């Protein structure tokens, strides 16, 4: 049998890092699909990229500055309009500790 590129345990670990819960069934399916996809990604190994510089961005932009001028910010009411839970003018977060 072909060596697996990624195991179910690794999929679980990366999903945990990404804060995405998976069901048991999904872990199985994703592991299988990820192995197929990563097999395909192996293709890039044969590209000769010796001393090639990476392209992070297609435009030749370095830094884009703007004038440091004050302007109105969004109304507080609008800021909270989409918040699932709000309390006393704060976003209510789940328990941290």
């Amino acid at each position, binding site marked *: 049998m072909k060596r697996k590129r990624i195991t179910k345990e*690794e999929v679980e670990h990366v999903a945990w890092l990404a*804060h*995405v*819960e998976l069901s048991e069934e999904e872990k199985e399916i994703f592991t299988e699909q990820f192995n197929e996809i990563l097999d395909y990604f192996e293709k890039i190994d044969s590209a000769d990229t010796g001393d090639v510089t990476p392209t992070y961005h297609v435009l030749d932009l370095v830094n884009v500055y703007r004038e440091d001028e004050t302007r109105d910010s969004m109304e507080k009411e609008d800021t909270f309009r989409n*918040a699932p839970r709000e309390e006393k003018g704060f976003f209510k977060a789940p328990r941290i500790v």
Partner: protein
Amino acid sequence: MAKPFELTAREITAKIKAQELKAEEYISSILEREREVDGEINAYIAVTDEVALNAARTIDKKISRKEDVGRLAGIAIAVKDNMCTKGTRTTCASEMLESFTPPYNATVIEKIRSEDGVIIGKTNMDEFAMGTTTETSHFGPTRNPWDLTRVPGGSSGGSAAALIAEEATLALGSDTGGSIRCPASYCSTVGLKPTYGLVSRYGLIAYANSLEQIGPMAMDVYDCALLLNVIGGYDPMDGTSVSLPGKGYTTNLRDDVKGLRIGVPIEFLGEGTDDRVKKSIWDAIQKYEDLGASYNEISLSNLEFSLAAYYIVAMSEASSNLARYDGLRYGYRVSEDVSDWSTVYSKNRRTGFGSEVRRRIILGTYALSAGYYNRYYLKALKIRTLIRRDFEEVLKKFDVLMGPTMPIPPFEIGEKIQNPLALYMCDVLTVPANITGYPAISIQCGFAGGLPIGLQIIGKPFDEATVLQTAYSFEKNTDFHERRPTLGHSFKSPI
């Protein structure tokens, strides 16, 4: 006589300005058409009928008072649901944003409104623009108006389907790896991905920032150029948008390709491309030759790496971009905070995101994680440089490159959705334009068994003018763009 919803944007603005047609009458006819056909097509997630009718009445008033009106006066424009519309829900076709109402407008929306364009509704798409078929939408798939059992392409499938079904006159899509051009090809419309930086991305819900652009979709090239005139240009709210001297994309459209040099990458017409598609593309190239252009077959040696490199970059950027969805400031949140923050976030993101979005977030996280960064992400960025160099070289000798937009004609809904890799493969001919940032258009160039085929024309950076003129000349000498599918009660085909 043609019904108002059948007209082009150019015809409608002329009639509205000449007071031969009221904006309200035209918008009503579009809304009626939508009610008639969208039940089977599902192009729209939301139709903003009241807002649109009010906007139309305002334009009619302006005209009756002899006030100036904008370049898009009265035109019904469908907007992909990943662009923020103030006061109108913007869902990204995701449960995560099902009840999200943006407190601001995307720059493209502001620009359209300032030219008196009318936003008619928000169109269906693959969730977070991640897909090639519009099947991953939380609101169900869009159906291809040419054959309701088939996909309309994606991810801007709703925008393309709305156009060809005549439920809108212009549309906006976004293109990260082909998401404008693919549905344009599959629905038989025009769709342009502009050069990276030409159109502001402010207010576009991000998927992969370094690859994506908002672009115009229309039924003909003139209308596409008209919408580009309005949405293009520098925006202080998007640091990657570029300042260019004002370009009148419509004024330079001429039916003339004499002396045009066309490069045909042989990799676009290889064994992975369907024979019927190949035939239509060669017929189109033959047409260009007849019109005075010349072509040469060329080879882009690093093209074979582009699809893998594209997916690695797109997934990596997605994993970072979508980290913001924690269900705290906006977005889906489980009803009870059952546990600590980490578990709650993971549950919010499990329910809020569909499986393709989670697949890409997890794979992107993997490609960026310690031990794999150099092997996947950095390697993909280096390949990006190689492909850019290839394109730069070849476009010194040619004015445009041509090939199919999609390697195969539209397939059946459900046919590939269980096999992510097979779906990714469909993007093989569209991703190079995103990797390089170059402009690319898809136009109507044929049919195979009643299913549309699209011709892709890729140009030099910020040379949309040549791309559009090349497309325009083909359209002027063919009639593929005039064909419409049989839909609705009033369109029963004579047997």
